[in-house]
């Protein structure tokens, strides 16, 4: 089974080409300064138009041996239907408009802490997640709002969560970096680098288990794990690639390579910046795709998701993309070269899709305008909803610590603490100091 509609080339060919920009990037870091790779020389190199300015037309899939014999199919005429095109466009607009609104709301003090926005990377979320079924799972990072939106979590629930309100998708308990929705199989935004990957691998394992051990033949659910380039230097990534390939798990590792991990350039932190190559190293296909082109992402995603669903195992997809804003809203974003930013801004994935839809007569300007207007309303409505929603009640503090609240133990009267009607109302503050006090005073009196 090959990746239909994309050019598949041998891994070696990629290396042989010395004009390959990626290759040049690799070379530039092959001559580091004396000790541990000085940063100085690299910074100079970075200002060259190197790495990842690969011509947008070539999607390169490098393949493991498993893949080599498969024959190639040529690109079909149109990559998607009108309905699909509009759906994807709407999703991308939603992602962009939602995040822009988050920035505004953050500066107005409506949201708190770290807020990481997704602007510029929409083609990845929309390109992949719009192909999923509701039962399929998505595991994300701290940059998770848009993944949740693409997976169908209503904008108002996400916005309300960001406002720390009771109507949020996690009742205000999770926050920006921790979006969960059991209903939509969004298994979490995870704030620590790499930690979502094993969770996703576990989700894929459970699909396989249900199908093969529990004999639920219809369980063909797949899991998408999203994470960044910086995360690919973390050990959990490698451990999971190994396990997923070993057990042929229905998972796609989607690397959103936006070239930066906060202020650490991908080239400065990674011995071989071509992340997709790690797939073949573990016996699974590795694909590099232009992550600023939603149609290409979608093609690759289709293939990879299909493979996973058919039980053919995992795929590693490296999407070359770029974030249009700082790492988080607190990031001064001083290290990225303005020329680099401009280069990627010119490849805005939304503009690209718009152009394709119009040129191929899949949509008119008016159609797209209507979508934009609709989304504006959705986002406005989400803000109003969030703003008007109540804050969580005090009793919520001690709820959900355990699935079985008897985990809080037995109280002074011999019954479970959680059964005390005052448990969450009167004594939540300070971890039962009042309760403990009473207990101690009782003992005091008895003694």
């Amino acid at each position, binding site marked *: 089974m090959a990746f239909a509609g994309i050019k598949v080339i041998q891994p070696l060919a990629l290396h042989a080409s010395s004009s390959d920009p990626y290759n040049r990037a690799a070379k530039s870091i092959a001559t580091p300064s004396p000790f541990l790779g000085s940063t100085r020389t690299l910074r100079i190199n970075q200002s060259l138009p190197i790495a990842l300015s690969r011509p947008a037309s070539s999607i390169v899939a490098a393949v493991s041996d498993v893949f080599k014999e498969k024959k190639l199919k040529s690109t079909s005429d149109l990559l998607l239907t009108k309905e699909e095109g509009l759906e994807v466009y709407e999703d991308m607009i939603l992602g962009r408009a939602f995040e822009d609104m988050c920035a505004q709301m953050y500066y107005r003090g409506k949201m*708190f802490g770290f807020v990481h926005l997704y602007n510029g990377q929409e083609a990845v979320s929309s390109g992949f997640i719009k192909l999923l079924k509701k039962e399929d799972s998505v595991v994300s990072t701290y940059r998770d709002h848009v993944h949740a939106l693409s997976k169908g979590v209503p904008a108002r629930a996400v916005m309300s969560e960001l406002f720390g309100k*009771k109507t949020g998708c996690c009742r205000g308990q999770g926050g920006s970096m*921790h979006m969960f929705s059991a209903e939509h199989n969004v298994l979490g935004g995870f*704030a620590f680098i790499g930690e979502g990957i094993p969770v996703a691998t576990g989700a894929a394992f459970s699909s396989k288990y249900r199908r093969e051990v529990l004999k639920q033949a219809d369980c063909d659910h797949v899991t998408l794990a999203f994470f960044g380039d910086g995360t690919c230097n973390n*050990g959990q990534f490698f451990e999971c690639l190994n396990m997923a390939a070993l057990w042929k798990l229905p998972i796609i590792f989607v690397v959103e390579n936006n070239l930066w991990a906060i*202020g650490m350039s991908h080239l400065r*932190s990674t011995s071989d910046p071509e992340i997709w190559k790690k797939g073949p190293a573990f016996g699974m296909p590795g694909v590099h795709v232009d992550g600023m082109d939603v149609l290409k992402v979608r093609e690759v995603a289709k293939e990879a998701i299909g493979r996973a669903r058919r039980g053919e195992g995992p795929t590693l997809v490296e999407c070359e993309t770029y974030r249009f804003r700082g790492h988080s809203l607190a990031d001064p974003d001083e290290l990225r070269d303005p020329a680099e930013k401009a280069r990627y801004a010119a490849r805005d994935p939304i503009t690209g899709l718009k152009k394709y839809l119009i040129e191929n007569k899949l949509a008119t300007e008016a159609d797209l305008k209507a979508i934009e207007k609709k989304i504006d309303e959705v986002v406005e409505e989400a803000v109003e909803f969030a703003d008007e929603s109540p804050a969580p009640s005090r009793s919520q503090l001690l709820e959900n610590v355990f699935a079985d609240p008897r985990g809080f133990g037995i109280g002074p009267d011999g019954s479970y603490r959680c059964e005390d009607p005052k448990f969450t109302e009167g004594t*939540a503050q300070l971890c*039962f100091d009042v309760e403990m006090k009473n207990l101690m005073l009782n003992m005091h009196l008895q003694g």
Partner: protein
Amino acid sequence: MNHASRYYKPTNTVSNPPKKRELSHPAILLLVTFGSPLIIRRIKGQFIIRFSTSRICYQTYSLQGIAGSYNCYLLLSSLLTLNRKDVEDYKTKSRCERLLGSGNQNLQLPFYNQKVFGDYMQRLIPVASSMKHFSSTTKNMTVRDALNSALDEEMAADSNVFIMGEEVGEYQGAYKITKGLLDKYGPDRVVDTPITEVTSTVLLSFPSISYLLHFQLKQNSYPYIQAGFTGIGVGAAYHGLKPVIEFMTFNFSMQAIDHIINSAAKSNYMSAGQINVPIVFRGPNGAAAGVGAQHSQCFGAWFGAIPGLKVLVPYSSEDARGLLKAAIRDPDPVVFLENEILYGESFPVSPEVLDPNFCLPIGKAKIEREGKDVTITAYSKMVSFALKAAEILEKDGINAEVINLRCIRPLDRDTINKSVRKTNRLVTVEEGFRQHGVGAEICATVVEDSFGYLDAPVERIAGADVPTPYAPNLERLAFPQIEDIVRATKRACYRSA
């Protein structure tokens, strides 16, 4: 302008009794600021460094294992065939102090350009420039600057010290604690790592690898040290490097906790003292604002439970400077828990605190506020809450003593118990979880040592028994507030609120 005579002040004898390390930095400064050329003579086993423009003599001494002096040792030994025994001789200390204090107006001619020292001086300039801080008045300093200056000075003083972590270099630190250090010390000593907590930690936990780096340092990047090392050889390498690992926040140390506990903390014991691990793990710890469950928690009690670790919890700028310097100079692994919210806070610091020699003893708590009615123990940010609560309580006629623990392990049982024996009441405050917490340990300590002195049950104030919620109103409920301390303290004093 020569500040050397004003510069050298013996540090406070109460909190910091004179130790070998005290004269370390002046030794370097002297060399930086005094004129050239040097005349170095050996008289009766002592080294007399004479500056041609003056008659001042200077004796180096007490150099072993001390950051600044060690550098001085290298410096001198690059000029002389010097052996350790010579430089360890500090019999003439008082004489030296006398000489240093005697003023030398006509010393100028800095020898930055001198061949032997050229590069070295580059590294020493930060130390020299820190002299501008020395005035007789107290000034204010943020905790951030305190940490930054402590790192800077220790790096200047000891080229074995280097810092490694995510975004410590080009980004100048996620919380700007390492600001400016990359420019001063270069990428070899301010090392940006990929997001690999586990590996960075283990890499540096193992001294054998440190040795390897050490040789690389010598051969590739530090020719001037090479000169210094000629004649010292392996003896110098035997000390190993002194890595300072910055965790962007201590939450991320969870990915590396295996190596903090199993590699760093246990190597000295497992190797029967053959291999010690002089490493510092530092970064912000504790509750932050609005960042949810995974980014907002205190690990004091976690690391405080581990033999082989020293766990420091600075509150003020004085703590930050004195304890970080102590941590870096310490031969054992130190977990250094900072607080993000305190970084921007300013505290008055005395000239003594600004002295590059300033160093606080590990294992000693500080009584931040004296009182007679009740003892409140706290650490890190909670010290400020406890102090504010004490002010409120004062108005109600309760005179609280506030102990800033400074160090969770080893715990200063002595200071705590002395205070409780005086006040007969104890309130412990911490952000971390109550069960098996720092407060629990303090209570046990007091019950063990001063049971008969307690007039009331101990009050333990801690974070609520929940992961940190995101919503601001719930978040506030999850951590101790000043009112809570006031309320609990009144209870401990049998006063109604």
